[in-house]
């Protein structure tokens, strides 16, 4: 058992490693006890409240003793379409515990959590680092019974005691779910040593030029040119530079990065090495969302193998000036950390709040140094470009979107999972591939994207110039309650807003109230008119992409499915809004009068 002194020493009492220190503390004690705070504060040059400022921001850091088994059930809309409620009820029944609490004996604690990147295998839940998928009430009965009998989550999932750094161990918990492979992803045929020499035989400038010429645009959602990002990063006087792999994949319904990390980890890492060489970085960091903790040992092993083979470390490929290594930074449960500047703040041991821009990370990113943050999929594409050439890549796809891309498909379809598609295929063709039956609406790019109508938009092309997509498709048929789905997404943004700016922190709450008002049958046309204006205000004045997109579920569903709103509206009769409850608003007055009357009748 390590004490706090040893944990701090391990990180040389570096304040910027606070996230790692907090994780080590939590793994040691099960939570972040108050007793460790004085020493932490002193050694890190902080106050205890500074430490609280950081840990209280993250969903998975806890400051009270937890139950022995803290269970987090993923509460996505997809899970809710696939038996979530029965699993929820079974968990409460079997553990004797209610959600949000611990049971009397302190064995079980139940909580819900946002999407854990398993929309093709929902319902799913996390217990510590382990993940359970495709849950049913029957499975819950078995799992809880075995936990009660003294088995650990690992014993149940991994009876053969496979090493935690093996792919077999991950496969024992999670399916890859690859449905269709194309020319780019999951080829697993790369000779990395040979490819490294091919890369470093070129001047870094040439590599950047290659990536620019390939037309590769970032796969995190914004679609910024990867080559340009690297160029901006290297056109800088500062010599210390960083490469970040954004593996935060928090967008509900998205799981492509999880599958890439599982099935093509070395392609991801090699893409980072290429980027490191191109921009002259010495360090790369993979920011891994804590929901993917089960991938950490496995990824560490891949890094270790690359080190042994001389692909990472000092004088890589015999080039004395090329020193580059990669570490993994664990997140702790905050969707906003998918924003690159929030992610950088988090990596520096702070709250994951997006920074004010400018400066941009390419000029002043991690530790104030030039930093290029790229998505997992972007790095795999880079590896392919290095192998097959820029022209090969550019010849696939459309004018604006080169190459192929991965889509995470879930919801009402026969074949949910990962699909590699060439940009430019139509939505209808995609739905057919996935075996969607009578699809009605598709949520493209997760809650931060558009809710579109298959009837109206089925012919549209999946490409940046038409139907832009960050890799997530959630399919809904006519049996689904879209208003309820919109409400769920809006609640998600209320929960996940970092709170630093007014429109996002407060405006999303107002929008959430509006959607509830519609669902409750108390809204009139004026409420919808206000939704449009308020939604626009939140989108335009928010500090980062979270507020910049959070009203989209409401706004796009209102635009594409006006009828589902219209049929819920009531007519405004007189000057008062239908949502105004005259009786309720006079309740205090009536209570006071009645109390006074009681008193006077008694006296």
């Amino acid at each position, binding site marked *: 058992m390590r004490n706090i002194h040893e944990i701090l020493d391990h990180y040389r009492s570096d304040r910027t490693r606070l996230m790692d220190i907090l994780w080590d503390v939590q793994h040691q004690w099960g939570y972040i006890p108050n007793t460790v705070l004085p020493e932490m504060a002193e050694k890190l040059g902080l106050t205890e409240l500074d430490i609280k400022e950081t840990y209280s921001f993250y969903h998975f850091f806890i400051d009270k003793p937890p139950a022995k088994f803290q269970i987090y059930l993923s509460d996505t809309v997809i899970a809710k379409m696939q038996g979530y409620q029965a699993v929820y009820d079974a968990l409460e029944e079997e553990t004797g515990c209610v959600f949000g609490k611990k049971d009397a004996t302190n064995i079980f604690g139940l909580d819900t959590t946002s999407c854990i990147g398993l929309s093709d295998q929902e319902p799913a839940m996390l217990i510590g680092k382990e993940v359970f998928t495709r849950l049913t009430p029957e499975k819950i009965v078995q799992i809880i019974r075995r936990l009660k009998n003294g088995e650990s989550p690992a014993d149940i999932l991994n009876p053969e005691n496979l090493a935690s750094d093996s792919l077999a161990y991950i496969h024992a918990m999670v399916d890859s779910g690859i449905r269709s492979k194309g020319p780019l992803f999951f080829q697993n045929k790369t000779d990395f040593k040979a490819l490294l020499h091919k890369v470093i035989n070129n001047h870094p400038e040439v590599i950047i030029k290659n990536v620019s010429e390939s037309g590769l645009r970032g796969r995190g959602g914004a679609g910024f040119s990867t080559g340009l990002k690297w160029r901006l990063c290297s056109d800088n006087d500062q010599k210390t530079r960083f490469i970040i792999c954004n593996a935060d994949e928090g967008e509900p319904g998205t799981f492509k990065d999880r599958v890439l990390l599982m099935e093509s980890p070395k392609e991801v890492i090699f893409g980072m090495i290429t980027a490191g060489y191109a921009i002259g970085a010495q360090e790369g960091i993979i920011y891994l969302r804590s929901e993917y903790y089960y991938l950490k040992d496995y990824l560490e092993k891949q890094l270790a193998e690359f080190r042994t083979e001389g692909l990472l470390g000092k004088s890589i490929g015999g080039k004395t000036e090329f020193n580059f290594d990669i570490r993994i930074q664990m997140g702790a449960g905050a969707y906003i950390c998918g924003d690159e500047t929030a992610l950088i703040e988090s990596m520096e041991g702070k709250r994951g709040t997006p920074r*004010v821009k400018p400066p941009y990370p390419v000029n002043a990113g991690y530790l104030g140094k030039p930093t290029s943050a790229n998505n997992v999929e972007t790095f795999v594409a880079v590896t392919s470009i290095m192998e097959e050439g820029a022209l090969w890549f550019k010849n696939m796809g459309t004018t604006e979107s080169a190459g192929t891309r991965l889509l995470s498909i879930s919801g009402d379809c026969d074949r949910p999972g990962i699909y590699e598609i060439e940009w430019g295929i139509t939505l209808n063709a995609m739905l057919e591939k996935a075996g969607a039956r009578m699809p009605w609406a598709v949520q493209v790019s997760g809650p931060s994207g558009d809710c579109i109508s298959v009837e109206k938009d089925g012919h549209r092309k999946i490409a940046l110039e038409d139907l832009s997509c960050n890799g997530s498709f959630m399919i809904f048929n006519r049996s689904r309650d879209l208003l309820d789905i919109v409400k769920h997404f809006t609640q998600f943004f209320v929960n996940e807003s*970092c*709170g630093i700016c007014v429109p996002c922190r407060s405006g999303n709450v107002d929008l959430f109230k509006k959607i509830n008002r519609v669902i409750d049958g108390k809204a009139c046309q004026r409420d919808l008119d206000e939704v449009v204006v308020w939604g626009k205000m939140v989108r*335009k004045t928010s500090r980062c992409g979270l507020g910049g997109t959070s009203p989209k579920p409401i706004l796009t569903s209102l635009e594409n499915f006006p009828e589902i709103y219209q049929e819920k509206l009531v007519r405004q009769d007189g000057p008062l809004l239908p949502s105004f409850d005259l009786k309720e608003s006079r309740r205090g007055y009536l209570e006071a009068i009645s109390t006074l009357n009681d008193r006077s009748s008694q006296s």
Partner: protein
Amino acid sequence: MIQIKIDGKNINTRKGANLVDVALENGIYIPTLCYMKGEPCLGTCRVCSVKVGGATAAACTVPVAHGMEVEVNEPEVKDMRKALVESLFAEGTHNCPSCEKSGRCDLQAVGYEVEMMVSRFEYRFTPRKKDYASEKILLERDRCIFCQRCVEFVRDAETGQKIFSISGRGANSRIEINVELANKMSAEQITRAVDLCPVGTIIEKKIGFNDPIGKRKFDIKSIRERALEGDEK
């Protein structure tokens, strides 16, 4: 020197200067609640939102560049600024008539400035705990707008450590006070902290309602007039 245009007016200025400052130097007032001249931009309140090249941006986060076209009084963005102020009134609990800061409160003054009559958003009256623990400071969280001026600009004189911090996330975030460090604050430091709080959250105990109505800071001059005259206090 570079040229920019604000509401059609040509302005010569220096590259990289803050848009709020540049506008003010040229007689154009943009309301702010979190921005303080000379201090790093916080970009939290967004009340200075304007249109830059047609896109909405918080003016305090914008360094001016040659050829920039800025719209401050364009109706849509003007209404957004008003909505943001109204949003703050709905989110916290702001009982101006009973507040010690009334008449010297930036939020109240900006409310007048944007001609707010009532919030278009539903008032929430969220219960928030006051903090009396420090000897000289009362933390009245009902009025806090999370501008984070106190978090960023108030430090312990000796160690440079933060005296105010945040806990929680999103709508549940709140300002915390380090009692031990707060008790070491000098009288000047407390006055500064009270002054930089744009609302009545940081209140000096045993002091309040000093100036009678009619003689309070913003009774004498509006926030716009003060800003245009370069009077930051």
